[in-house]
């Protein structure tokens, strides 16, 4: 049984999705989705444990060995990413029902939960597969379902945002497909490890170079790296609250994961960073992105959009860490994926609570909500502190790791700019805190009740997580360090 865990991870939500449709009843569909997502979470925890004990797990689908068949590969990195993606997926589902009731027409609920599961399937599939073309297929599953989920937002801007995301996302996916094709042409295989072993690197064949850049650009679109982020603010802003929680916490992170895989698992950092000046380019892009997006976040009137821009900035920190390609930097990038998933998930969950009670995500409509919704407001303050990176929160751990990694590499300006940029986070987080606590409540706010416990408890579980992993880093930083070591060690 245990040797089939990797495939179970995908098949379970995959099978549950059509079942939800067949059930055709919202409560039943919800219960099934909840159950399956928690089982998936359990399986990924089991996989983390297993990888820790026995090392990399390889699973040949249908018994066909690579390079013929498709191989599943669970190593410390993929198991780590799967763990937090499925964990966030499961927790958000616990949080979901009230908000979904409020924002999505009831007759659509069973379809909504089915799509949610499909999105989860796609994300998990991207993490677990060791086959490049298979990554593309799963990427499309997760993308298509997220377009649909985003289009469910209440305003008519939601379908438009989804459409724009679809066009940009499909261009990105097609770029990835071109990149895969060119790599295939040069190596004759689709298995990542096999490609890495066979890709000709001496003299840097131009085809490999172009293949690589197409893969990177395609993934950058999906990751929303700075100049290619244009789809993200609208998509996050107009999607239903629950969808934003889920997608913001997981989708971009999984793309980052795929990016890491491509750079360290296929191209090798030696080629990417020594032969190509990719590290400088990425560093510059990341820094510019951090500053531009953080500044944009400061001026937003809509809190969801504010957080969306903040997400673009935070992706910059991940890229920054990855582009250092040292164990320290890579660890920082990976651990920030995890920490940011927690933090941003928690913050968007808070936004969902406000949206439920106040019917708005505009900052002006939240004035003085600290009085009537103290717990939700406190939640924002906590999550905000974590986002800023105050000690004792998870955000601090990533910031600290990134800082020491930059220092270690002697990247002075980067360290200074990084710290300066985190001051911008103070501004945009605190703007909201002040509105919550130091403004006269509006009539609607005065009438508002505290968010229901069913939503507050999962939110606080996630927020508590930001504290736990700000202090106890065995399961975040240590796993990330192991993953980074694995990535760098695997490529001589």
């Amino acid at each position, binding site marked *: 049984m245990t040797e089939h865990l990797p495939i179970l991870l995908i098949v379970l939500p995959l099978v549950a999705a059509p079942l939800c449709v067949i059930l055709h009843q919202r409560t039943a569909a919800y219960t099934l989705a909840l159950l399956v997502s928690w089982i998936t979470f359990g399986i990924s925890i089991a996989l983390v444990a297993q990888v820790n004990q026995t090392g990399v797990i390889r699973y040949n689908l249908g018994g066909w060995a690579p390079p013929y068949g498709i191989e599943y590969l669970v190593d410390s990195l993929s198991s780590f990413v799967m763990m937090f993606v499925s964990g966030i997926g499961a927790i958000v589902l616990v949080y979901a029902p009230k908000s979904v009731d409020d924002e999505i027409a009831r007759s659509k609920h069973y379809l909504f939960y089915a799509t949610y599961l499909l999105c989860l399937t796609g994300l998990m599939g991207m993490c677990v597969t060791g086959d490049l073309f298979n990554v593309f297929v799963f990427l499309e599953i997760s993308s298509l379902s997220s377009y649909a989920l985003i289009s469910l937002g209440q305003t008519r801007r939601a379908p438009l945002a989804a459409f724009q995301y679809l066009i940009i996302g499909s261009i990105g996916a097609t770029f990835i497909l071109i990149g895969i094709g060119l790599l295939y042409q040069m190596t004759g295989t689709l298995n990542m490890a096999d490609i890495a072993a066979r890709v000709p690197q001496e003299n840097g064949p131009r085809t490999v170079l172009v293949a690589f850049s197409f893969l990177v650009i395609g993934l950058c679109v999906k990751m929303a790296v700075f100049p290619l982020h244009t789809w993200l603010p609208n998509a996050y802003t107009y999607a239903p609250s629950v969808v934003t929680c889920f997608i913001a916490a997981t989708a971009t992170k999984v793309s980052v994961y795929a990016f890491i895989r491509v750079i360290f698992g296929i191209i090798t950092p030696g080629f990417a960073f020594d032969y190509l000046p990719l590290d400088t380019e990425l560093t510059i892009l990341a820094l510019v992105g951090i500053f531009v997006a953080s500044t944009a976040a400061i001026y937003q009137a809509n809190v969801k959009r504010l957080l969306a821009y903040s997400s673009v900035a935070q992706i910059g920190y991940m890229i920054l860490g990855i582009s250092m390609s040292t164990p320290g930097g890579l660890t920082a990038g990976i651990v920030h994926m995890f920490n940011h998933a927690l933090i941003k998930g928690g913050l968007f969950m808070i936004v969902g609570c406000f949206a439920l009670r106040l019917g708005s995500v505009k900052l002006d409509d939240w004035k003085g909500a600290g009085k009537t919704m103290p717990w939700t407001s406190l939640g924002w303050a906590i999550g905000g502190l974590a986002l800023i990176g105050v000690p004792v929160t998870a955000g601090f751990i990533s910031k600290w790791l990134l800082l020491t990694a930059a220092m270690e590499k002697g990247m002075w300006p980067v360290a200074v700019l990084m*710290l300066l940029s985190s001051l911008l986070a103070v501004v945009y987080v605190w703007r909201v805190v002040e509105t919550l606590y130091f403004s006269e409540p509006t009539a609607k706010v005065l009438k508002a009740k505290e968010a229901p416990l069913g939503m507050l408890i999962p939110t606080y579980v996630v927020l508590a997580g930001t504290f736990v992993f700000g202090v106890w880093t065995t399961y975040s930083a240590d796993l990330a360090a192991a993953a980074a070591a694995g990535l760098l060690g695997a490529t001589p």
Partner: protein
Amino acid sequence: MTDSMQIWLSLLLPLIAYVLLTLTGKSPNVREGCTLTVATILFLLTCRMASGVFAGERPEWMWGEWLPGFQIAFKVEPLGMLFALVASGLWILTTIYAVGYMRGHNEDNQTRFFGCFAFAIFAAIAAAYAKNLFTLFVAYEVMTISTYPLVTHHGNEEARNGGRVYLGILLSTSIAFFMLAIAWTYSLAGTLEFTLGGILAEPVADEKISSVGLGLLLALFAFGIGKAALMPFHRWLPAAMVAPTPVSALLHAVAVVKVGVFSVLKVVVYIFGLDLLTNSGVNLWLAYVAGFSLVVASLVAMTKDNLKARLAYSTIGQLAYITLGAALATPNSIIGGGMHIAMHAVGKITLFFCAGAIYVGAHKKNISDMRGLGRQMPFTFGAFLLASVSIIGLPPGGGAWSKWFLAVGTVETHQYLLTAALMVSSLLNIAYLVPIPMLAFMGKPKTDESHSDDAHGHEADEHDSHHHAPTDGIHEAPMMCVVPLCIAAICSVALFFAADWIYEALLPITQTPNS
């Protein structure tokens, strides 16, 4: 009781207080009883530890390793011990005082107030006992955050603006400079542990860092520790005056600012090392910045009519004394700086207590309105006078000794300009502190009409139920306010006689291991 237990218990106690008082928030008497009990236990425990530490023990306790190489660990040494002693002792006084003040004022959210207070004490103790820079930094930031709700306690526009400046400056400096400096130090030395004689000597010998770089690093530390309120990053301190007076007392006398200068001293003594600093000469610019800071702050203080604002600028000046002591980096100046932490803490908390008592008892904020008030509030103004003497540095105030050692430090290093600055500043101290009790005792009260108009004009809307105090006879603030401030005033004099003991206690930190 083992060494490590003493440490974690003293860290745990404020947290226990926090939990207890949150749970018992409904009944104020029980809540404050709990706080006081815990504070007393903590103080006794700290005294017990102090006797050991000053005798040469160095208890240690490691809580855990957050990241490989970065531990949250604690080790008690004399400087930290002194700071912890001051903090825990004054916590008791401040709590008693706060009870009187907050009740006398019918403040809202008292539970949150006392809770954050306990948390700030926790952070102060953690900072005092920190074994390495990493732990110190974490405690430093926790303190910034936990005192923010205290500063913005009133929740109005003014509080928001004050809080903005407060948090803005403290967070920005700590993130942009302090954190960078720590990371830099780590990349140079490979460790962040406080070590007698410093950890940077080796990298300097290996030429990993030039003397310019060393100066820059010192600057990052000095300005990054925004709580030390070195100009030009001092703005947060006056801004934080919007807080209730007990908070100001805590912030400006005990916890926040003292964590700042304490950190500066720690960095100088245990990270740079006195020898390294004096040999490389990079410390002098800092000494001059501190000298400039202390004269200017005293000058500004003279212009302030609002008593709390004047005290705030006075604090900026006094903190600069300590920074100056650190910057001179001679054994005498370090001891002077360390001693001034205690002397100034006790003196300044008295002054703030007095300011609060005057506000509660007579509803006066401005010095010009206090003319003749001394006859109504003799204890308060008497205490004010005693504390002023200590702050100025005249016998029999404790401050006399610390300023003496600082002056010796400037002479030893032949920085006579700084000696002059110290003298000038002390004169200025006299000029802005002594007139207050003098006016109160000697001055003629304003005529009743203008007096009451003024008072009502200021306070009527805030305190509608308040009936105006009669001008004749003794009318002090509540006992809960007056008693602590008298105790504090007596302490500030008592310290004059205990200076020798502090000197002995601090002497070990100035000795380099090989000399």
